[in-house]
């Protein structure tokens, strides 16, 4: 698989490491335990387009939000995670 890093260009997947769902938001520190429980443990497992966090650890060391189709592995795009959507 190839991932289009917005800085480095198209790179082999072995340069990246996968984290998971990019839609999760860390709860505010005053949020109840249940909110943290969901954040730490609950994950959707969609068949189809999925926004995922990937780390380009062997390249520019940026965290990316990659939109990947979990069925076809087709990658619709990637952007820096630190940039607001």
């Amino acid at each position, binding site marked *: 698989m190839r991932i289009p890093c917005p800085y480095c260009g198209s790179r082999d997947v072995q340069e990246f490491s996968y984290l998971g769902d990019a839609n999760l938001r860390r709860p505010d520190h005053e949020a109840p335990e249940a909110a943290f429980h969901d954040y730490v443990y609950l994950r959707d497992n969609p068949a189809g387009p999925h926004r995922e966090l990937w780390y380009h650890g062997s*390249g*520019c060391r940026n965290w990316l939000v990659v939109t990947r189709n979990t069925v076809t592995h087709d990658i619709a795009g990637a952007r820096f995670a630190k940039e607001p959507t």
Partner: protein
Amino acid sequence: MFDKLLEPGRHGLVDGRAGVLVRPVEGLAIATVTAGAKRIAAVADTLESRFGIKPPARPACRERDGVSLVGTGPGRWLVLASGQESAGFEAGLCCALDGLGAVTDQSDALLVLELAGPDVGRTLAKGVTLDLHASVFPTGSAAVTVVNHIGVTLWQTDDAPTYRLAVPRSYAGSFMDWLAGSAAEFGLETLS
């Protein structure tokens, strides 16, 4: 350090001209410069006024008067200066960029090698997972990538083509083992 890694002279195939030439680039002061998110332009301007080089906004290398700026990430550059004392070079940069970004001395962290020769492309292809064809990776291109599971920064300095690779110090021995093995079929000449 380099002489301990690989004996100077010919390795692998000994007939004819060596296909790959490798030479350590010594006497470099090396630092990483990282700009704060909102101060990339200010850092770039400072670097430009200091070195007379516009810092590349993409993975590329620009060189002038013995100083090279290699783009390694957004707002992040590897700065290499030949003939400069590393601590002084870092201190000077720190002063210039005070409050704008971080300067970190890496002069001892990286072994910089220069690779050339007619078979350098075929040799690098055994480890580099990038397309180094002239139409894609011309002179002045740079990349932070992996060779043989070793993270390296790679850039092309001329059309011969000649490449420079910055290899982490602790991995230098394994990198040279890989290079010697990969270049063996073409003949590897180690220059000092």
